[in-house]
Every structure is written in C-alpha cells, then in structure tokens.
C-alpha cells in the first residue's frame, strides 16, 4: 500500500509520519563507486537497530550501465523486495523511468545537475547540488565522481533524521576505520547535510527512529557466509573458474583461508586454484576428493553445464565433491547479474545416464554458513557430488543474520579405511554394500597397505572395482546406488515446516523466495491461512509427503519459468501430484510479497 493510500486510510491531508517502514532506491551508473555510499546508508540504518536489507540490481558490464540499489527498512522485520517510495536519482539515463515508478506521495532526491526532470505534483523533490558540495574537497580529480556519491548520503541522512555520528561510524566500518579515507568522505557528507538543513524544508512523512532489532546481529553476503562455512568445514582444495555471481564466493574464500587456516608452523592447510575453465575445475575437485581432500568448486549455470560429464562420473565412481551453484538467470548467458532458481531440475539429475544428486538450498546467511561445512560432511559421508544451490540475491547482497553457530557435530569423513583397518579386515571391496545403507568403503591413495589399492573407473565395474560388462554386476551396482540415495533422504537437512492447524492450503518453496512468501502469508493470515514447508534439500524425506498429504492444495512457489521443483515433486509423489500446483515466475528480480499474495489469491479463486 503506497503512501497516498495510507493517508487516505488515515483520513489525513497532511502526511502522518511513516517510521521505519519504507523502501529507498539509489539509481546510479555502474562504475561510479556508489556501492560505498549505499553500504554506508545500509550500515547506518543497521546501526540504528532497524531491520534492514539491501539489494543491488547491477548490470553485466564494468562501467556506465544503470545500477539500482534498493534498501528496505521494516520495523516488522520484512526484508523482501518492495517498490520504493524514496528515489535517489543520480543516473540521467534512467531518471525519467525511475521517477515514473515512484508511488504518489513518494520522494525524489536528485542530482541538481540533472536537466529537465519531469515534474510530478504528487511527490516531494529534494535537489543535491553535487558540484558545489564537492568543490574544493581535496581528492585527486579522478576520484571526484566517486566522492560525489557521498553528497546524497548527507541529504538522505538529513531527510530521514539520521545523526552524522551514526553515518560516520558506518563509514568507518566501510574503510576499516582508516582516518584519512573516512575523513575525505565524511567531509562531503557533512557539507551535504549542513546544506540540506539550511536550504531544504522537510515535507515528506518518512523518518527513521532507533530500535533495538539488530542487536548482536551480523551483516554479510551469502557468498561470504558460505565461504566461511567451508573454511570451518575444512575445505582443503578449492578449484574454480571465475563467473558471476560465484566469483565473490571464491574471493571470500581466498580472503578468509589465509586468516583462519594456517597450521601450527604457518603452513597453509588449503590450496585454491584458478582453473582454465569449469571442466578443469570439476576435474581438480574430483581428483582431490578421490585423494582425500575436502574439495569444492563454486560456479553458476554455464559452469554447471560444463561440469555435467564430471558430475556423472563422480556419481558413478562415488567421489566426494561439493559444487556451489550461485544461480543467475539462464538459459545460456542469460542475465549474468540477475537472480534466479533456474538450475534446480538440471542440477538434480545432472549428467547423462541415470544420475541423481543431493542438493542443499540455503535461504539465509546462517544457512549458507551451515551448509558451507555440512555439504563437505555430506559429500564424504555419501561419497558423491553434493550441490549447494544459492542464488545471486543471497550470494551477492548483504543480509542480517544471527552470529553463526559453530558446527554442532564433529567433522564427518565418511567410510575411509586406513592400513590398520585393512589389516584387520584382510582387505576390502570398494563397491560392496557392507552396511546395507548403499554406502561402500574406500581407501585413500598413499595408504601403506598392499591391499589398499583399487582402480577407479567410469566404466562398468563389480564390487571389487574390477572392469565388468556383466549385466548382473551393472544391475546390482545401480540398485546399490539407488539405495544410497534413499539413505541420503534422511541425511540431508530436513525441511523447515510451519504447520497452520486449520490451513487447507500448503505452500512449498526453497531458498530466498521465503521472504516474500513469509510476508505474503502474514498479509493473508485472516483471508487465506496457509502452512509453509521450506525445502532445505533434495531428495525429499517423508515429512514432505506428509505435508502434501495434509493439505488439499499445495502451491510450489519458485523463481524460474518452468516450475522446476514442482515438476520434481509431482514426479516423486505421483499419488499426490494432482494437488500440487505451480506458481513460478522469473524476470530476474526477487519476488515481492504483493506478487505472491496476488498469485495465490488468483490460484485459489480458480481452484
């Protein structure tokens, strides 16, 4: 509901203050370095104790194309994307369109250099005389356009009533509190703030008031959290090939490992290799996992396609490996800087022949961290490639979260036999189902025992890992692999379920769509009560079946075009498939609560 609606509701002419509940968008051009300014705003609000979240909608180039940074504050703690009431118009190329999208009652803070901006009489305008504000600031001329961004920080602070102390603190965090840098930026912020105080009259209803909702929380990107999880999960070999939006995952890993993972003598307990492409990255991970390392790679859609053959190999030869897919919009190159959940079906059965792979779906930085270490455990426990499907929204944007929980279980290394055990057992059969769980035992190269060796091959093999073209060997082995997958059902993270006692309708989702859905559920609470099952992994366990069984209609809501998870669930629960419906959409932007709400009501109307 936009500002005007609110006003009418309140029956007021003059706006009632709107406190800690609105969205703000900063429109700039890529390469101007506005990220620093935007994060300064984000951190300022965070430091005020107000639930906040920022989403960067950026282009696939390095300089010049339009970028939007959305910040939402919500005293109720909602962080889903929401159309903004406040626009900071600093990009001439998009200013007109950006302005049109403002709801009436909105605010437009604009760079005073912008020529002939359309005038709307239902919104408030505040100019920012950038030129005069940065005049004489001592920075190299080249960096002027960059420092200029600080001007809008000052004006926004004025408009929302954020004290400069808070801003300075936030700025400090940005620059590791390096005085010279902080000062050169703060100078501009201050000037802008003073100028606004002296020359502008606040006419809009938007204000921020301190709360205590962010006490003790951390703020981090999903890629950083995932990488940190991997560091505590004992990743020892990481191989990758750069691709947006997974690059910052590996950047974080390369930044964190040296700080946290040197042994007592200062030697690294890890190595990170930039491969020549994704085929090589996958191969390195396979080789490393086979030889006993905790190995991972991170990539995105195109990389997943290139890894298909190796993943099929890893499934069949039973080699532990972790593959992070930070999903972006596909098919093909698609929209490399937009978010999506479009690789789910592809990753689930990636590779030719009969293959299936466990997939974890983090939805928060807490889960990124948790799955960061857990995925490495699962890969070695199950001796198979394990996927973690994150997305650009989660991976590259900053999210609030509880400080991460230290791993609550000892590191799982799976069924690995050492020389002593081999001696005791008198040998082993690599692909034999000793324990009935479908998971065989393995040995590592270098194990000092004459019976340790076995031969790994992607071709048909018997329990002794010998080459075999026998029909019975093949059938037995595939049956065991299927048994292993059954074991996986209860090893992977169970779904998070919010069961509404009287709900006839159940919702199923995974990953970051949860935020729009949770907000929509609250809005619909009276009108259309729903239960919510958030998948945290595939394959599904019994709880998912029970959930579907317990509701008349189940909607699978996802951020892709073809309703991929819906298809998977229908195929796995044919007896309930008729009640499983798809609500799927993808245009590169995160879902909004309003959209979810409308689509649900529509669907129910036709039900």
């Amino acid at each position: 509901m936009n500002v005007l609606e609110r006003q009418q509701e309140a029956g007021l002419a003059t706006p009632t203050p709107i406190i800690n509940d609105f969205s703000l968008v900063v429109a700039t051009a890529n390469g101007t370095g506005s990220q620093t300014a935007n994060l300064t705003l984000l951190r300022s609000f965070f430091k005020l104790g107000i639930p906040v979240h920022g989403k960067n909608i950026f282009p696939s180039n390095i300089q010049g194309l339009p970028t939007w940074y959305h910040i939402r504050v919500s005293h109720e703690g909602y962080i889903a994307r929401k159309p903004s009431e406040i626009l900071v118009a600093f990009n001439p190329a998009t200013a007109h369109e950006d302005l049109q999208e403002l709801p009436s009652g909105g605010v437009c803070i604009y760079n005073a250099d912008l020529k002939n901006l359309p005038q709307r009489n239902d919104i408030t305008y505040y100019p920012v005389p950038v030129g005069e504000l940065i005049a004489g600031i001592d920075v190299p001329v080249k960096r002027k356009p960059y420092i200029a961004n600080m001007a809008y920080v000052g004006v926004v602070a004025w408009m929302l009533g954020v004290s400069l102390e808070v801003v300075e603190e936030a700025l400090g965090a940005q620059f590791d509190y390096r005085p010279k840098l902080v000062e050169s930026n703060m100078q501009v912020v201050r000037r802008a703030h003073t100028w606004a105080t002296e020359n502008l009259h606040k006419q809009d209803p938007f204000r921020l008031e301190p709360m205590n909702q962010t006490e003790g929380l951390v703020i981090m990107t999903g890629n950083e959290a995932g990488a940190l999880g991997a560091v505590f999960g004992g990743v020892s070999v990481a191989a990758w090939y750069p691709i947006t939006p997974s690059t910052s995952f590996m950047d974080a890993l390369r930044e964190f490992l040296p700080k946290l993972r040197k042994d007592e003598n200062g030697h690294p307990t890890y190595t990170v290799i930039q491969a020549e492409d994704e085929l090589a990255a996958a191969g390195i991970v396979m080789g490393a996992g086979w030889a006993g390392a905790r190995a991972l790679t991170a990539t995105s859609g195109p990389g997943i396609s290139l890894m298909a053959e190796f993943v099929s190999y890893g499934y069949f030869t039973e080699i532990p490996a972790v593959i992070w897919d930070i999903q972006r919009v596909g098919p093909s190159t698609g929209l490399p800087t937009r978010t999506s959940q479009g690789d789910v079906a592809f990753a689930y059965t990636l590779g030719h022949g009969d293959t299936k792979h466990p997939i974890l779906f983090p939805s928060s930085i807490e889960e990124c961290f948790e799955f960061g270490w857990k995925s490495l455990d699962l890969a070695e426990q199950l001796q198979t490639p394990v996927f973690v499907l994150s997305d650009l929204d989660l991976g590259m944007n900053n999210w609030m979260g509880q400080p991460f929980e230290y791993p609550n279980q000892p590191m799982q290394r799976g069924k690995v036999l050492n020389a002593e055990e081999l001696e005791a057992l008198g040998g082993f059969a690599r692909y034999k189902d000793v324990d009935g769980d479908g998971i065989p035992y393995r040995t590592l190269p270098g194990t000092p025992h004459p019976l340790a060796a076995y031969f790994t091959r992607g071709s048909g093999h018997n329990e002794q890992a010998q080459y075999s073209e026998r029909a019975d060997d093949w059938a037995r082995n595939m049956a065991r692999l299927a048994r292993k997958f059954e074991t996986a059902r209860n090893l992977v993270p169970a779904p998070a379920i919010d069961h509404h006692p009287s709900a006839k309708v159940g919702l199923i989702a995974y990953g970051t769509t949860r935020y729009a859905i949770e907000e929509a559920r609250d809005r619909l609470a009276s009108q259309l009560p729903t239960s919510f099952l958030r998948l945290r992994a595939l394959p599904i366990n019994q709880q998912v079946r029970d959930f579907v069984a317990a509701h008349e209609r189940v909607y699978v809501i996802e951020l892709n075009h073809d309703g991929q998870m819906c298809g998977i669930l229908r195929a796995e629960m044919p007896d309930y498939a008729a009640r499983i419906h798809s609500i799927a959409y993808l245009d590169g932007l995160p879902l909004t609560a309003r959209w979810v709400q409308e689509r649900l009501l529509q669907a129910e109307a036709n039900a």
Partner: protein
Amino acid sequence: MENLNPASTIKLNAVGLSKKDYDGSPSTLCKGCGHNSIASQIVQIAFELNLQPHQIIKLSGIGCSSKSPAYFLGMSHGFNALHGRMPSVATGALLANHTLKAIGVSGDGDTGSIGMGQFKHLMRRNVRMVYIVENNGVYGLTKGQFSATAEEGLELKYAGHNEFPPVDLCMEAIIAGCGFVARSFAGDAKQVRELLKAALSHRGTALLDIISPCVAFNNEDDSPKSYGYGTKHEQPLHELGFIPYAEEIAIEPLQPGEFRTVRLHDGSLISLRNLDHDYDPTNKLAALERLQRAQETGEFITGLIYYNPERPSLAEVEELNTPLSRLSTEQLRPSQAALQQFLQSYR
C-alpha cells in the same frame, strides 16, 4: 609384504617385492599393441627403482592407451578419468597429496584432440608427474579415426586421407613451459626405461611422447604388406573387425645419433633418429629448431629433447607441506573462538 613371497627363490628388490608384484591385471589390448610394451617397461623400472606401490598413483583419460594403467602396478591406486581430462584430475589428486608419485598415461587423441586445453595448462602449472602419451596417430578404441598427431597426407584404410598438419606434442609442451620433454619409440625398450626413470625424478611435469603403433588401425592402405591383401576392396573385411594376431615390435636400442627406419606391422616404415651425444637439451630454441627440422624431414627424433629443472612445481608454488589429505580435523577446523572473533568485524 614378504608374506607375498614366502622364503622363496623369487628375486626381490630393496622393498621386498618381486617383479610380479608390480604387474597389473592381464591386458585386454590387442596382441602386439605398442601400449603393452610400454606397460611392461613401467613394471620393469618400478621394480628396478624399488618403488613403493602405495606411493604411486596411476592416472589416465579414455582410450586404449588410457586403459593400460589397469595392466601395470596392480598394488597402486588407479584413476581412469574422462576423455581428455586426466590433467585436471591429476592436478587435484597431487594437490591433495603432493608426496605421491604420479604416472599418467594418455593417448594422442586424449591429449592432442579433446585434451589439448588441459594438457597445455597442466604443463603451464608444472604439476609434478610423468605424463606419457602413447602416440599412434589414431583413435584406437573408436576404430581408427585420425587423431591430431597423424601425419599430413597419411592414407589409412578406415580413416581415409588426412588433410591436416600433425600436432607436435613435444613442441606444444616446450612452449607451454614443460621442463622435461622426451620422445621415444615403444619398441626401444631400453630408451623407454631410461627416459621413464629420468622422468620420475623430474621436479615438475615430465612429458614422454612415445610412438606406439596401433596394430589394428594404423595400417596404410597402399602398403603392400598391410593386412588382408591390402586393397581398398578388402575394407569390408576390416570393418567387420578382424584383428590378426601380431607380435609387439621390439628393436635393438638406438645408439646416440643413430638413424634407423623401422617396419611396422603393416609393413609401413617410420624413421627414428636418436639425438646426438653432444645435443644440448637445455637450450629451448635449439629444441624447437630440432623438432621443426625433424618435422620437415619426416623423422622422429628420440631422446630427451628439452630439459629445464628451474621452474618450481605447482605444489612448491602453493607452498604445500603436510599432504592436505593427511590433515587432522583439528587442523582443518578452526576453533569456536576463532569464529566468534572473526564475526566481530561483520557486526
């Protein structure tokens, strides 16, 4: 290990193993295939060098050549990877445990066609391993199509006429930064052994490009002695998969500087020239020049063509110490305190 060889008369080496202990499972390659000769030499030198089987890994891609790791060192871990992807797998395995000795076997198709990219980048990273290419100029396992190393203009019964210039894997390796580049002939057992031994002690990647004739498909159409009368009209026979029995080719070791033409199974000839005593393998340009001239005269020079032990291996560059595969969980997982402390900066 001794118990494998009860106080017997069998000759044991310094680590108490008999030559048989280095065997693999029986070869399923064609009788007379050059690849078998190479496998035997690997067994031989492993025995002579007193290698500990558990400290060796065998790797390969896909192809007849790539099958052969199954046929030697049965007590060593083996990894028969994907077609053209042995280099990346070897890189990963040797990062996980850089103390392992790695013997990789590939084919000319596996390396020169689908594997070109990974081959070049392995050399560039200088991963410490012996990289053997069993080079027969064809795709044996898929029945004799030309590989990228086939001579230009070559005419084969099944594959037809080859219109493209051959990839010279030794040149490729040299300019990619490989510090040990040698070429040999599968039939020259002595030279193969010598080069294998030297390669195993090299600091980084050591390439052995070994000419290894394919009995089944590398037979020239116009060769008088090629199988089954050898006229084009016999093709049906051939296509119906008759592979006559053949002996592995074995020649008297070439002497330094010696030139010799060797008759292959089908009667066709290849020219080998052993490098001179005074050839200096440490000069990169000279090596390139030598290879270029050999290409022009259509002969294969054999021996150690280029040697440069200067560049550190990947493991050295990555400063690996304890093999990563041997780290304890304590070494792999930082403390709870470390986590709390780290998170401070994200508040």
